[in-house]
């Protein structure tokens, strides 16, 4: 037991220790300061700018920035959709896979363009190497970079700067942050045993009956794997994702994967501190997120460590819950991975979330609902500050002034955008399709477990889509050719798009509106947001607003299930 907790503690300590250095580096990148790789990258970027005709000096307004994102995303989506639908005759298809159904291709396209990577297919049997590398792999970089661009534009606006230029931010995010780390990380993964090959599956005779043969899927996995984690994409090369021994063969690769998915969102809070010139506030907010994260990790880990009472009573002893887990990771690394992947909107999985104890299910769902326990690439930090703005508005009135954040008044427009963003998008994208699916359990959802667990499965699927996480609770017949596949593909597309683009537009407009405000000087009459008190208040607002919206589904899902199991049901 001690070893498990130690693994958890050391992993967390590692990424927390990386935050200031890496966050500071990202700040330098986006502030346009000199960085180590300048001699190599400046010429490369210059070529890219001139090729694409990007006017690097052009500052974009919120709308313009948002439009640039929408146009480029639509263009990239068309490309990937074309690629997948035509993979049958395109090269790099050693297994000769044909085109999937149109709705699977559409769902996959939207899922990858939105940085969600929700997968209603099995990678190794549905997509060619070409589709995986050129289609999905490409989007893993661009969708992650889009998120980072939105995050940094939001921080710029919040701190009174012009929002910047989307194309420049997109390119710099890739060349300065995602690509260099991915190259190093991919080499490390190869060294640790992850395959990287264009050769087709290996066919070997089975051990039990040498007359029978078995195809072992492989492929260009290592380079795909690192950006899958780093970019918080989460879409596995293989169906079972990071539980697959070729994706995540050992505890060392598992460590790289966990740190990989959390390092950017965690360090991004520090990047904010540099931009706002308030490292104090950055650390306070960081601590708030870390505290909730630690609580969540602990809850999940306790649930898994104590195991299932029903199984324990059969065994006659208390054993960790290892159903749906890889033995090489055990309860601790599985619990840590699951909490981190749902919190960071990565969505990669190294164990089956469906098999977690209700306590874990509760935490994983809560992570998806809150979206800020580290949160998505760039957007997570932006959400965090949107929450802060709401907290400032609600509690700031109580000091008798028009609430202001970083000296900028929070008025109608900001409240409209922030409250819509934080409070309304999620219920629309999760509860409405969830309720429809549950209203027609036979025809629409194809749930494997009836009752409370089935409710959790359905809500989880939409929450994962809306939060752009992509992990699955699984247990749903959500893939073609199941009869319910079409419904799942299309209804989750709705959640994916709602959960991605409405918040992006709202965040950019919010940033734009804040950046145009004349800052009000700080006085003792100003509510300070960089205090322990206010950070505590924000945590309360986050939990209460989150709880108010999702308490009923949590009560009818994991909470009810927990009571049921406790009763011995």
């Amino acid at each position, binding site marked *: 037991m001690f070893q498990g907790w130690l693994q958890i503690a050391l992993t967390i300590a590692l990424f927390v220790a990386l935050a200031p250095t890496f966050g500071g580096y990202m700040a330098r990148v986006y502030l346009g300061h000199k960085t180590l790789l300048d001699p190599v990258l400046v010429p490369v970027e210059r070529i890219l700018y001139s090729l694409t005709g990007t006017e690097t000096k052009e500052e974009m307004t919120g709308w313009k920035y948002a439009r640039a994102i929408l146009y480029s995303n639509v263009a990239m989506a068309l490309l990937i959709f074309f690629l997948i639908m035509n993979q049958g005759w395109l090269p790099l298809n050693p297994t000769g896979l044909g085109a999937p159904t149109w709705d699977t291709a559409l769902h996959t396209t939207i899922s990858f363009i939105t940085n969600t990577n929700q997968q209603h297919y099995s990678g190794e049997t549905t997509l060619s190497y070409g589709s995986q590398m050129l289609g999905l792999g490409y989007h893993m970089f661009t969708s992650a970079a889009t998120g980072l661009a939105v995050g940094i534009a939001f921080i710029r606006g919040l701190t009174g700067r012009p929002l910047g230029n989307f194309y420049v931010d997109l390119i710099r995010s890739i060349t300065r942050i995602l690509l260099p780390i991915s190259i190093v990380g991919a080499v490390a993964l190869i060294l640790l045993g992850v395959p990287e090959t264009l050769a087709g599956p290996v066919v070997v005779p089975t051990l039990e009956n040498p007359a029978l043969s078995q195809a072992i899927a492989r492929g260009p996995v290592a380079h795909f794997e690192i950006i899958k984690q780093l970019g918080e994409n989460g879409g596995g090369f293989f169906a079972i994702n990071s539980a697959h021994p070729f994706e995540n063969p050992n505890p060392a690769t598992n460590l790289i994967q966990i740190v990989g998915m959390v390092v950017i969102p965690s360090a991004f809070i520090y990047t904010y501190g540099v931009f706002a010139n308030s490292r104090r506030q950055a650390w306070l907010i960081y601590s708030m997120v870390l505290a909730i994260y630690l609580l969540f990790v602990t809850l999940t880990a306790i649930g898994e460590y104590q195991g299932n009472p029903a199984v324990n009573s059969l065994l006659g002893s208390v054993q960790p819950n290892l159903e749906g887990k890889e033995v090489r990771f055990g309860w601790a690394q599985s619990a840590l991975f699951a909490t981190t992947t749902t919190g960071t909107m990565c969505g990669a999985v190294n164990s089956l979330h469906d098999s977690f104890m209700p306590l874990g299910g509760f935490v994983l769902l809560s992570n998806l609902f809150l979206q800020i326990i580290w949160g998505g690439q760039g957007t997570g930090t932006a959400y965090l500050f949107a929450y802060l703005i709401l907290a400032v508005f609600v509690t700031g009135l*109580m000091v*008798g002034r028009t609430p202001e954040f970083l000296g900028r008044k929070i008025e109608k427009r900001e409240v409209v955008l922030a409250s819509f963003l934080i409070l309304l998008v999620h219920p629309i994208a999760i509860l409405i399709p969830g309720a429809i699916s549950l209203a027609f359990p036979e025809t629409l959802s194809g749930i494997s477990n009836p009752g409370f667990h089935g409710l959790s499965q359905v809500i989880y699927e939409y929450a994962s889509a809306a939060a752009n996480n992509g992990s699955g609770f699984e247990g749903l017949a959500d893939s073609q050719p199941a009869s319910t596949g079409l419904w799942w593909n299309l209804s989750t597309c709705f959640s994916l798009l709602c959960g991605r683009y409405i918040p992006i537009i709202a965040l950019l407009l919010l940033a734009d509106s804040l950046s145009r405000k004349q800052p*009000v000087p700080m006085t003792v009459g*100003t509510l300070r947001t960089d205090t322990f008190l206010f950070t505590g208040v924000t945590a309360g607002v986050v939990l*209460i607003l989150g709880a108010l*919206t999702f308490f009923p589904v949590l*009560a*009818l899902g994991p909470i*009810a299930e927990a009571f049921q199991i406790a009763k011995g049901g």
Partner: protein
Amino acid sequence: MESSNQFSSTPPRAPGGPRESRRHTPKADMSGLYQRAVKEAFIKLDPRITVKNPVMFIVWVGTIVTALVTFNPNLFGNVPDTGLNQQIFNGLITFILFFTLVFANFAEAVAEGRGKAQADSLRATRSDTVARKMLPDGSVQEVSSTDLRRGDQVKVIAGDMIPSDGDVIQGIGSVDESAITGESAPVLKQPGTDIASSVTGGTRLLSDELVIRITSDPGKGFIDRMIALVEGAERSKTPNEIALTVLLVVLTQVFLIVIATMSPLANYVQSPTTIAILIALLVALIPTTIGGLLSAIGIAGMDRVAQFNVIATSGRAVEACGDINTLVLDKTGTITLGNRLASQFIPINGYSEQAVAQAALAASVFDETPEGRSIVRLAEEMGATVDFDRNAAEGVEFSARTRMSGTNLPDGGEARKGAVDAVKGFVRSRGGTLSADLDAAYERVSRLGGTPLAVCRNSEVYGIIYLKDIVKPGLRERFDQLRRMGVRTIMLTGDNRITASVIAEEAGVDDFIAEATPEDKIDVIRREQAQGKLVAMTGDGTNDAPALAQANVGVAMNSGTQAAKEAANMVDLDSDPTKLIDLVAIGKQLLITRGALTTFSIANDIAKYFAIIPTIFAAAGIGSLNVMGLKSPQSAIISALIYNALIILALIPLALKGVEFRPLTANQLLQRNILIYGVGGVIAPFIAIKLIDLILPIS
């Protein structure tokens, strides 16, 4: 024009007396307020009125639906028979929802009623009077005051009511303004002077005749605007109120989605529920507490301003008061009493202090100015006596040319006091000699910021009278309070730097501008605004008008000119510039009250969830979450709803009175209010709902 002389020597009406005694008129008639409000609360159930408040409109719709399922519980699908009489239960829910609406309406009605009472007493001053309109040909025509238009000229004769707001363009007369200000002393009005040329409709001319140019169309005067505001009739929502409404509407929508999607979820886990229960849960969750009280808070805020005898032209201006960062205050009349008073006698040339006092008294016995009287008072305190026959002596009045005043004594002697240079000249002309002592004393007083007056008798200079600006009592503490709230004060004065710095130090202002011109006033406002600060100022003169318009909150004195009043967004009927400080507190209190009740309302939801969800989904096995141990689902729902309705009623006094405001820093305020309304808002309903559940005779 005898009567006018009597007034011309009266000093300008100083805002005197303790602050409390000035919160007086117009005394509003509050009798029957609650009966009327109860009636009004039912009238407001009209959906055309309710629809303006989105949160309460949802309750309204919910009440209709629960009423329908009271008559036919199976209207929206069959309700499983649980042995419970659905009709009685649904009827009970309908009944409580109905009263939730009535209570919210009642809150608004009470606030409006209080405003109306306030307005009525203002309106009483507006009674239709006959005005003597002067036609271009010089003749006079009697018209109704409501027919007067801006630019008309009217003649007002002693005993007449002044028909409308205007400027005096001819004549001098004394006006009784007690109807508006409550101040019984009549005020002198005459043309040309900044201060005294404007008159307000509804006040009465006591003496002489005035010709007045009307400056406002009927129904557009200050009083009319205030009436409209306090009645709530023309109340447009303030920016902050709109922002808060947005949040409340979004929260309401969230809960609508949560409740609308709950039915399939509940059915799926085989724990179905009824529409009446879902509506009950919805109403319990949406922010009805703040939604029901929001407009009452706003109206009550305006009412508080009115009770302070300040006329605000918009709610926005009142709200802006809370945001003020900088107060720009004139020294004279605002920070100091307006007159310099004698505070010390400084002897020179070997005279004793007593001798100076004696000479000063001799030079001042006929001086009726406040300065002169203060010299007499100080001298008499020091035991000086008049050592000549007053009746035989003759007073010499101050003139701009001589810059001295004094007394020609019966024995032919001359006692004088005045500007040091002037007295020097006088002494020289009488053959006296001057010593360096005089200059030394002069400089000492100047350095202290005082005004030195030299005193001489015949050719001998006795010493210097130290006239000092007197800072109004209690101001220093108020400036301290403002500083603690983060409001900076800047004093403007025409005095030189040294004098200004001494007063600034004594009054405890944060900054001052000496030798200021009216242009400096607008410059300092612009400079502060350029840094993003909100500035408030007071003014009364025509040359203050641009600055009043520039300031975020400009408060004109009622005694000021029409131009100043037009430019300002508030007019103080008492002409008390220090009221600005109270306005800051009123503005803050308004925002705090809104914030506190919003926080309370949202925090309450936790307990309501814990009361209702576990009990109605007991079939899902989550009964253990019923931490309050409520008796049954029915009792839990009814208890939560009763709490929900009663809390509106219970908080009406707080909404009307406003959350108590203390001059603390923002962090201290947050700490305090989060504790009371946030943490308190989480805990209070747990206790209250449990108690109601215990009392309820429902099993």
